[in-house]
């Protein structure tokens, strides 16, 4: 499995990782090795196997009743936030 330089940059972008030029050679070398290792799985014969969505597939998701069980605790939660104003979490400006 080979990866181009653009593949590596694209994966880094999707993962929001800032890659320095110095890190590129190492990643370009090790990422394909990891993929090749995992690729062994594709040797398994799966044509007749029903895909599973979960290790406990066959059991059903438990459901809860539609009741409000939570009370406001934003002041506590916001103690972890870097910046808060008017009860809003502030983050560096993002606008699409």
């Amino acid at each position: 499995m080979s990866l181009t330089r653009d593949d590596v940059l694209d994966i880094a972008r999707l993962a929001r990782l800032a890659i320095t030029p110095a890190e590129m050679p190492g990643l370009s070398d090790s990422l394909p090795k990891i993929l090749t290792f995992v690729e062994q799985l594709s040797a398994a014969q799966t044509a007749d196997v029903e895909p599973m969505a979960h290790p406990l597939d066959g059991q059903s998701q438990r459901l809860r009743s539609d009741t409000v069980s939570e009370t406001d605790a934003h002041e506590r939660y916001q103690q972890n936030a870097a910046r808060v104003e008017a009860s809003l979490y502030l983050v560096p400006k993002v606008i699409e």
Partner: protein
Amino acid sequence: MNMEWETVIGLEIHAQLATRSKIFSGSATAYGAEPNTQANLVDLGYPGVLPVLNREVVRMAVKFGLAVGATVAKRSVFARKNYFYPDLPKGYQISQYELPIVQLGKLEIVLDDGARKTVGITRAHLEEDAGKSLHENFQGYSGIDLNRAGTPLLEIVSEPDMRSAKEAVAYMKRIHTLVRYLEICDGNMQEGSFRCDANVSVRQKGQEKLGTRCEIKNLNSFRFIEKAINHEVARQIDVIEGGGKIRQETRLYDPDKDETRPLRSKEEANDYRYFPDPDLLPVIIEQSFIDQVRATLPELPDQKAARFVEQHGLSPYDAGTLSASREVGDYYEAVVAALGAAHAKLAANWVMGDLSASLNNDGLEISGSRIGAAGLAALLARIVDETISGKIAKEVFEAMWADGQSADAIIEARGLKQITDAGAIEKVIDEVIAANPKQLADYRAGRDKLFGFFVGQVMKVSGGKANPAQVNDLLKKKLQGQGSL
């Protein structure tokens, strides 16, 4: 080169489900709360917490599926849709991908010319809404309110079956009506409970292959969706006729400028890397649950309209208008119940006419009407028993709307009772004829059109209160020289 173009539209409608609590947590979903007061650790994406699915959300999705004749999946699977944005704290949205809960339904829409068309519904899947980002007021920062994060959404995806902006609007209105009938969504577009993305492409007439599509986001009114699609179609035709190619991209509609513009460039095309969410087991739905939900289905808009035609003798158009919203249908039916089915057409005309106009003027929903169904029925009863004419009834209606008094009180206080005493009407007619000798002579010389003039004069002199049918009868006789003059 003058080519004929065909527009192809598919819609993705997001309906917030009207539950009390969120799809995966016990936080409240009420609109308009103080920021972040309705976001708990699950909604905030803290480590070590697990989502637990709300039963009501499943029930509502099944209800929708049954109403559009779809297959309700006995096994559906939640998946993670991965992307980064500050109003999505987990870094992924829990959605459904390969195995949605509702598959392959359809819905019939009625177009302006009365033609009917069936639109395919590819799927409807459950997912969580994201939070809200506020970009103003914070120098260099965006404010994040996560109250909306985790609000249950049903995303309803249509086939690319619509061929014009008008068809798209008709379909969206139909879904809007349906989710409100089913009481699974409040349909409030201003609050974002019901919104839509449109996939739009054009192709040459007769060509089978679909053109490259663009997705328009941010459509939260019926008017905007029509304008946005029309704008986008014109843009795409311009590009192609100018020798260019359409790029598949997401575009945003700006209602202020009435244009669409690209939201993301192609270089940043999204790659959501869906995979089954290991925090949630597949949802297994038993047939008994589906049967239970089916038993709770209300009368649907089409069924109601058909009943109005059959039981009340309404035209299909009137029946369609009155069944378009459950509340309007209920109001109309209450009026008919009080007035008698024989007068259904009268009730229909008033609900669609004066009542609807007054509601529009004051920006009210029918639930907030200043005149209740009983009040309107009492007014119409006075037309039926000939206490007042239809014209006077409009005056009474306006007074009722303004000050909330009953029809009878207003008729009494203003002396609006219709004059049905033939002697009194004759007296007025005699006065009018005596005052207009020239018109009388012309009429008798053959100018039949003057009849209307005399009717108008008599009604004017009587303050609109003379019974119109009697006026017609008596006036005809008198003008022809019969009876005393």
